[in-house]
Structures are given as C-alpha cells and as structure tokens.
C-alpha cells in the first residue's frame, strides 16, 4: 500500500526476480488461506521486505509450493510458505485496513468504506494475534490524523508568518514521521528475540522514510486537496528533500548492513538502495519532460 519499498527489477537476475514474486505470491496465498479471498486486496510488494528480512535473519525455514490461482490462471507459479510470510500477510492486513479507514475519513470514498468493512473481520483476527502492534498502530495513526487535521485547518485559516510557518511545519512533519516510524518499528521487530533492537531501529527509519517519500510523491495532490504536506509549506528544493530522505535511509542501512544476512541479500539491497527511489524518479522524469515540452 505504500508502493515505496519496491525492488529495482533491473538490478535483479532471473532467479532473484522469481524469488521476489515467490514471496509476494506467498503473502497472497497466506491471505487467501487464512482470511479468505477478499483479503487478497491487501497484498502488496512493500510487505515482501518484511518477510524477506525476517526470514533471512531468523532462518525459520520455508517451503515452496506451486499452484494456479485467479491472478495466474494459465500456469503454476511458485509461492513461499513460512511463519514470516504469514506475518507479512498479517501486517498487510493491518496497514490496508488502516489505510482504508484513512481514505474513508479523508475523502469519504465509498470504496474505502466497503473495503474496510470487508477487511474488518480479518483485522480483528490479526488484532487478536498481535494486540500490541494493532493498539500501537491505532494510537499513532489517530495521533497523526489529529495533527494533520489541526494543521490543515490552521494553514487554511491564517496568513502565517513565513519563518514560523516553515519551522512549525517541519517540526510537525518530524513528529508525524516519528510516529509512523514507531508503527513500522514494531512491525519489523515483533518477536525479534536477540535482533529485536536492530530490527526496531531499522524499522523506525524505514517508517520515517516512507512518510517523507510519500509526502514528496504527493506534493501536487496535496496542494490541490489542501492536505498537510511539509514540502509544500516549506517549498523545499529538490536537493534538500533528497538529502533528508537519503539521511534517513542511510541510517536505516547502517543498521541493515550490520545484520548477519545472507539469503536474499541482493534482493533486499535492490529495494533499499535503488527501488525506494523508483516512483520519485519516474515522477521527476515526467515532470521534467512536461516542462521541456
């Protein structure tokens, strides 16, 4: 649902590509088996990173099976099964459910309401299994919504002093980013045993990155809707925004590269070093070509 933690396909060989899909399909399969067909809307590539990282670190052991399915009716495809794939599926439900709620709250999109009802049952089961994650996510997302709501109103109402406005916007953005980071931190690190701390720190930075990257990607959309976007309010130059994102990702990778990972290492690196920039790059190219046209 973020559409940010994606692998850079060009930097993968055929085997890695296959592996990437195998885990993605594994998440989809896990959702279907455990929560029913409707839950498959939750499947996304972002959560593949959660599965890959945890499996690589813990090495619980995985099985690979094959099957046909609605998305791949023509031939059998491989899908991975493991406790970490199941966990990634559960976390997909968590994020998708809350995103639907957000969409419903923000835009009153009927589709979002339908999805959130449909996912409600799956979410309740995930919540029963992971009460801390869900409680934390609910709490932090509510806090974030409240901050953004207040900011949206205050910037609409007043003609704020420029400098103060910028600093306040940045401070609030940092707070929102940290709160989101707290959610991802717990998602990555739950039941982490010895590695819980490293995973939590890594997850926290990933969450912050996702928040800021998402904001950067949504600049235009947020301008039109009036939603809080620190890059809009501060008129941040491209290179400053990128410096921020790289700083955060740099910290994430510092933790990542200290972990004893072997399996799927290049695949994960292709996400963290290259894939996370893909959508932004595409957007910039489009923007630049529009400008020069």
């Amino acid at each position, binding site marked *: 649902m973020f559409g940010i933690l994606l692998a850079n396909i060009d930097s993968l060989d055929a085997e890695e590509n296959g592996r990437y899909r195998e885990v993605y399909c594994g998440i989809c399969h896990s959702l279907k088996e455990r929560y029913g067909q409707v839950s498959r809307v939750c499947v996304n590539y972002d959560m593949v990173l959660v599965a890959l990282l945890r499996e690589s670190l813990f*090495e619980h052991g995985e099985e690979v099976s094959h099957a046909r399915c609605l998305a791949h009716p023509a031939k059998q495809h491989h899908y991975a099964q493991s406790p970490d794939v199941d966990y990634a599926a559960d976390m997909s439900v968590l994020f998708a459910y809350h995103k639907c709620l957000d969409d419903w709250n923000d835009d009153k999109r009927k589709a979002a309401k339908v999805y959130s009802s449909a996912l409600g049952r799956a979410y309740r089961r995930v919540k029963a299994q992971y009460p801390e994650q869900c409680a934390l996510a609910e709490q932090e997302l509510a806090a974030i919504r409240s901050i953004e709501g207040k900011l949206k109103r205050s910037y609409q109402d007043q003609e704020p002093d420029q400098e103060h406005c910028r600093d306040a916007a940045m401070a609030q953005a940092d707070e929102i980013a*940290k709160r989101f980071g707290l959610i991802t*931190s717990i998602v990555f690190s739950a*039941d982490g045993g010895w590695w*819980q701390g490293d995973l939590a720190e890594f997850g926290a930075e990933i969450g912050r990155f996702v928040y800021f990257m998402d904001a950067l990607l949504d600049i235009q959309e947020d301008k039109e809707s009036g939603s809080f976007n620190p890059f809009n309010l501060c008129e941040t130059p491209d290179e400053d925004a990128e410096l921020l994102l790289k*700083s955060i990702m740099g910290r994430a990778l510092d933790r990542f590269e200290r972990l004893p990972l072997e399996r799927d290492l290049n695949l994960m690196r292709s996400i963290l070093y290259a894939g996370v920039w893909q959508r932004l790059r595409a957007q910039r190219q489009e923007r630049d070509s529009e400008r020069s046209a």
Partner: protein
Amino acid sequence: MAASPYQILGVSENATPDEIKKAYRKKARENHPDLNPNDPSAAERMNQINDAYDRLMNPQKYASRDHASSQGGYSQGASGYQGTAGTGYQGSGGYQSTGGYQWQTGSWGAGSSRGSSQGSSQGGSQQGYAGPYGWSSDFGFNFDDLFGMGFGSTTAAPEPSASDSAEVRQAISYINAGRHAEAARILNAIPSYGRDARWHYLAALANHGAGNEMLALDQIRRACEMEPNNMTYRQAAQSMRQPATSYQQQAEQRGFSVGFIDPFTACCGCIALQSCCYPVMCFRPF
C-alpha cells in the same frame, strides 16, 4: 578463560564484515536451539555466538560504555548503546518508556523503566535464547533510542561561549547530557530576534539528537548560510549529512543508482577530499 569473539565465531582477526556474517550464519545453523532440541546448552552457545557477533560488528557500542560521558551524541540511561558487562547486546528488549520524549505512550508503552539486564532473550541472567519467536513482551519504546543520534555520531559537542545567554547555556548542557528534546524546547522559547546563526546551529544539534531530522538539516543549513566561514557549523553540517553521504557511496560501490543528485560524480569522487567537498554544497554554494 573466555574465548575471544573471533574464536567463538571461528574467524581470523582480519576477517571482513562479510566473512564475519558468513561465519555467524554457519554457527547459527549448527547451534540453533530449535535444531538441537535435546541439547540444553544450545541456548547458551547461541547467546555467546550472538554476543560475539555483536561485539565484532558494533564495536562502538562497547567502546561507548567507557566513553559515554564524552560522547555528546549518545542518549543517556540504559539505552541500547551502553552495554553492561556480560550481557552483551542490549538492544532487544532494552526499551524503556522513560517518557523522556514526553509523548503519550499510552497503554502499550506503560512498562516501567527497566534496567538493562532485563529483556527477553539476552545474556546470562535471562531465560536464555528464546528462539526466533522468543517472546519479548516489552514494548516500552524510548524514542531517544529509536530516533536519537545513537552510534555513528561524529558531531562535536557544542561548547558554551562567553556571549551565550543563560538559556543557551542550559540548552548546551542539555545537548551534552543527551537531553535533546529539552534542549530543543528551551531554544524554541527564544524569540525570533534572538535567533542568530549560533541559535540555528544549536537548535540543529538539539533537533538532530531528538530525531527531528527535517528541521535539523534545515537549521544547520541556515546556520552555515548566515555564517559561511564558520568551520564549526560546516563540520556539524557535514557530520549530520554523513549518513546520506555514506548511503550514496555504499549504493555506488554495490552498483546501485540511488536518488538523483550524484555529488560524487560532480565532485571528484574521491573520499579523501571529503573535507572540502560537502555533499549538497556542490549544488548550492554557501
């Protein structure tokens, strides 16, 4: 007679990080308690292996134990970065809801402040390796630990100057004590006419330590703009940008192309000249 971390992992003292990781993997696969269910000492061996790995891959954590007070960037208290002897890595389960960040941690974070010897699967005093799904039910997050400077900080500690007001001096001592959020609060109370380059520099340090990355990077940029010849501010800027620089370098070394602005192809690409070659400066001279 304790074995050295190198001996425990079975690597030479010249081993590269990649070799250490591979060695860890090999040892973990052999000694994993789940694979040795009838062997009660497997958990203890796994702990030793984990500890040895941590000492080799995170040496600064153990150095920091000795130099904690002189490292301005480290957060205080029994954080993940100050190990106590024998228990090795503190990060897992070492969270405390000290409330140092003054946020509403709510019911999930209501765990009381815990000493660093607690936590699920750490060290000798614990119930041993709890397995990969070893339950660690403490989610008392300490924001300073998660988002604070942590290891890798090379930002020099700020020193008070003769012309500093009392509030500024207080802020400086908070920064040096690792109490970044409080320092930021004091600095924020200083009105706009008092916000000179030095204010921006100190606010940047405080916010950086508190994990307010967007604000900190902006503030240090402004400090450098206001006083372009101030080497202290430039060094602080470089230090704060270090993760971004390293990230870029690492990506290139591994053959990935990251972001858009590629300072090292624009500059000379030579790490030795980093002192005169700040990443973002290439595109916006101060």
